[in-house]
């Protein structure tokens, strides 16, 4: 009942509106960073904000399938946008790191190879490239079942991003561990036996 109502309501939200709302933080953050609104050290703050939004979008993307499977809420239309938006934010996060943070060209490679948390973040980003490139109707049609297989890379990419976040923080901190647990849970749901789906379908 509620799910059906929600689904009907969601149908009226155009995908471009999701893009618009989700991209609003970009100009807002840039403005704040340039005018002192992000505190005394805007480069690190910008890096953190972009990384956190990227991670949240990735997690939202992982929610779509379980929401449909367990609650009958269908947000499938927005999944591609969420994925591409997450990729956009990771790319901006990386860009800030390259241009504003590290600056020194020789140190970029050294950091990617030598610093495990950068290596892992970079691995996550690299895994996302084929996913972003194939997030269009043409690729879905051309790749067929291979598309579904390829897009299972999402799980690895999001896990790497979660681990990267845990490694960034110093000391024992709850916040990144909670993110990692949520990611683990959402991926774990994929491995539940399909039986429960039939049950929920049997009781419409």
């Amino acid at each position: 009942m509620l799910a059906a109502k929600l689904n009907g309501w969601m149908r009226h939200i155009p995908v471009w509106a999701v893009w618009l709302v989700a991209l609003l933080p970009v100009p807002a953050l840039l403005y704040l960073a340039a005018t002192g609104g992000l505190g005394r050290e805007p480069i690190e703050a910008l890096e953190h904000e972009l990384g956190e939004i990227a991670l949240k979008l990735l997690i939202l993307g992982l929610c779509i399938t379980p929401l449909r499977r367990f609650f009958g809420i269908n947000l499938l239309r927005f999944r591609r946008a969420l994925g591409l938006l997450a990729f956009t934010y990771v790319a901006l996060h990386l860009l800030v790191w390259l241009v504003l943070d590290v600056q020194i060209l020789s140190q970029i490679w050294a950091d990617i190879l030598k610093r495990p948390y950068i290596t892992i973040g970079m691995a996550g980003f690299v895994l996302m490239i084929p996913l972003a490139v194939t997030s269009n109707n043409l690729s879905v049609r051309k790749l067929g079942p291979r598309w579904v297989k390829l897009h299972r890379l999402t799980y690895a990419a999001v896990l790497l991003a979660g681990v990267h976040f845990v490694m960034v923080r110093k000391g024992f901190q709850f916040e990144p561990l909670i993110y990692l647990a949520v990611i683990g849970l959402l991926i774990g749901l994929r491995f539940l036996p399909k039986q429960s789906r039939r049950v929920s379908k049997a009781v419409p």
Partner: protein
Amino acid sequence: MANRWKNTLTERDITPEAAYLDRRRFIGAGIGLGLMGLAGTARSETLEPNPWEDITQYNNFYEFGTGKDDPARNAHTLTTDPWTVRIDGLVDKPGEYAFEDIMNAMTVEERIYRFRCVEAWSMVIPWNGFELADLLAMAGVQSGAKYVAFETLYRPEEMPGQRFPVLKWPYVEGLRLDEAMHPLTIMATGIYGKDIPNQNGAPLRLVVPWKYGFKSIKSVVRITLTDTQPPTAWNTALGSEYGFYSNVNPQVDHPRWSQASERVIGGGLFARKQPTLMFNGYEEEVASLYAGMDLRENY
């Protein structure tokens, strides 16, 4: 014995705070014109102290939260009066020393020091304080003492960060006795001539300018002279990344990032990094303390 060390950063003296504020405004206006880089280098060359806002709004003080702005937001809850420092261990006159009595006995002077965080950022801070050696002399260091252990206040009601096991509380630190007695080592009680704000470690904190910032323990309530190397908070939490010595050293990287360069806080969005100096620029004064030691081994 105050004034054993002369500031090399005083040639240009501290710019009065009002002038800073004007300068900040000028820098702010310059963003669009690409003047940031110029202003940034000008500051690092002359080593002018960072403005009050940088020093008091960008802090690591996990007792008040792990965000850089958490201490400025949360530290107002800390009661710093009355305050006593327990000095014990291998001293002639162990006991509880009231903060006022300490201040009455010490000579407070200004020290403009570089401050280099292990996270590869830095500031220049005009501290007011007294030499730790003078405080230790007051308690009378016994001949068997080899190390000095420090402890931060543990009061979770007022220090919300202590309710989470980010580190093992209370925060503890330690120095070798010769490091503690070095004239550069001070207990700071003020910044820019004002009482030190809570978020910077009120009412008194250690400042060891040639070591990474986390060695400079804040809001000290206990100082113990010992003959064995005391545990230190970050070393206990993650020994592979944070050693007992933690001297600033551009040649020995942190496992997770390079220590060769640093970003001076306050430079804005396009701040250039600057090279990190050996012993944070105090090589001449302190290198002899570590003669013959492998600094890579003793990180």
